[in-house]
């Protein structure tokens, strides 16, 4: 494999909560375009590692760089805008919004028009014929209103805000299609089935146009068939050019989809390598099974 650039560098990161050391000098990097698995037994520090990358917790020491820019001390919404998005181990959607709106919130992170620009629609863009309002209302009054709007758009153009809103909606619809729940677009997030909610979280994260997508146990609670289709989705996402950092308990799933794996135990990195290498690593086997490997 040719040498790729490092997208994310986790450099000697230590995190202590009071007396507990959650991460202890962890070092690894995620390369552009790969799927990196982050595995380890319960309490190994995987989610803490995610939280550090996305700015939820601040490392006690060490550095985290994304595309060469340091992330430590950055505000969370700025880290998102730099290009890191995530999902959560325990689903955290906006329950009282529709599925489509949930994804739009993510897409709004890329919106360029300011608050003032949005309120007064100052920035105008010449309108293309297919973007004009259709005059198709049934009532005469409705038609008149539409005609006035159409003429107005001809003369003044559309505001960039309007165009961005439309683009965001289109993008959101497309992402819902990608994760396979476009038929539930208008439903409130809380009324979606469990598996659909997990997929919606992925769509919402993708809407922020990340370079790096962090998935925190996306297959938790899935049956084998659902896991299989999730694997496919993760590969599809990688193929669109998004680098994926994946936390997962299910060893088979990790082995099947990742290019490389980093193994944590008690907050320390104990192994790193291709799935095949990691599978053979005695320290990893010991960590997972708690027995010596060459018993035979």
């Amino acid at each position, binding site marked *: 494999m040719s040498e790729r650039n490092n997208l994310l560098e986790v450099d000697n990161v230590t995190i202590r909560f009071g007396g507990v050391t959650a991460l202890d000098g962890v070092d690894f990097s995620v390369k552009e375009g790969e799927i990196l698995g982050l595995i380890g037994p319960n309490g190994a520090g995987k989610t803490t590692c995610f939280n550090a990358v*996305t*700015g*939820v917790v601040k490392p006690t020491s060490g550095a985290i760089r994304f595309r060469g820019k340091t992330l430590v001390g950055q*505000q*969370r*919404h700025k880290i*998102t*805008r730099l290009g890191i*998005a*995530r999902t*959560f181990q325990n689903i*955290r*959607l*906006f*329950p*009282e*919004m529709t599925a489509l*709106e949930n994804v*739009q*919130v*993510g897409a*709004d*992170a*890329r*919106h360029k028009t300011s*608050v003032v620009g*949005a309120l007064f629609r100052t920035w105008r863009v010449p309108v293309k014929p297919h973007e004009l309002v259709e005059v198709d209302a049934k009532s005469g009054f409705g038609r008149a209103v539409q005609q006035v709007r159409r003429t107005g758009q001809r003369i003044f153009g559309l505001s960039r*805000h309007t165009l*961005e*809103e439309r683009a*965001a909606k289109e993008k959101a619809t497309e992402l819902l299609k990608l994760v396979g729940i476009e038929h539930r677009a208008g439903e409130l997030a*809380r009324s979606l089935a469990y598996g659909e909610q997990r997929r919606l979280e992925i769509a*919402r*994260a993708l809407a*922020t146009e990340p370079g790096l997508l962090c998935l925190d146990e996306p297959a938790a609670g899935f049956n084998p068939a659902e896991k299989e289709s999730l694997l496919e989705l993760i590969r599809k996402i990688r193929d669109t050019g998004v680098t994926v950092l994946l936390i997962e308990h299910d060893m088979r799933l990790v082995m099947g989809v990742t290019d490389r794996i980093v193994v944590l135990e008690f907050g320390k990195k104990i192994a790193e390598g291709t799935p095949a290498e990691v599978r053979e690593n005695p320290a990893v086997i010991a960590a997972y099974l708690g027995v010596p490997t060459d018993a035979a």
Partner: protein
Amino acid sequence: MNFEFLGDNFMSLTVTGLTQGAIYALVALGYTLVYGVLRLINFAHSEVFMIGTFVTTIVWAGLGFGVGASAPGTFGVLGLIALAVVAAGAASGGTALIVERVAYRPLRKRNAPSLIFLISAIGASVALFELVGAITDRQPRGMPSLVQPKVQFTIFGADVTNLQIGIILSALAMLAGLDIFINRTRLGRGVRAVAQNPDVAALMGVNKDRVIMLIFVLGGMMAGAASVLYDVKVGITTYSVGFLIGIKAFTAAVLGGIGNLRGALLGGLLLGVVENYGAGVFGNEWMDVVAFVMLVVVLLFRPTGLLGESLGRARA
């Protein structure tokens, strides 16, 4: 008790109540927006309203319409009102923003417990109240009566004046605008996202501080507009005017379901109407007693208010 009076004047009491309630509803929006997003009762909101009433009189006096001036023609009056709405909206919105910056944001940065916010809110309220009291020598300030109430039509025996129609319709229009803003636009989406889950909203790229500034400014602007309507209706203001209106508006917000925009409208109108019925039955001095007894009774049966909380986090 005078039920006969209530029966005879039922419709006219209703119209008066709706007019009063429309103003409560506009002020209630400020409480409900801030509560919906921050779970914080912004007690300084009543003073935000009060400052709007003064800025209105200052603008009018500055244009030569001090106390006793005669009203200009219809378009002149509409122009004066529009100008006052802009000025009072800006002043009240600005005041709300300053309160947020000075009294709440520093506490938020330090993760202060909610009791501290409450004390800070009361402190900000008293400071503004006393500041304006000192500047105005605690004297009321008059203004010309720009709109002479004229009966436009009569429904079921109740006279409806141009002033009442104007107040109710403009309040409804502003509420509808805000409702569309929150439910249909990008910024509104951000507001709802922060209300439902502030931490996740930040991780999805929503700038939380900007959303908070936005809701304070919006709530302040609505209070500013309400203050102009109040001035047109009442014709006099004083530094303590915010207290009772503030409490009533807060009551209206709780009654409808605090955190819920449509609840604020329902609560405001209902409160206005019921207190007028109460005044009709028991006499004017019982007006506030009736209003607050109703609040207690409603909360006994529906602790989340009539429409429940909707802007806010979902109940599990």
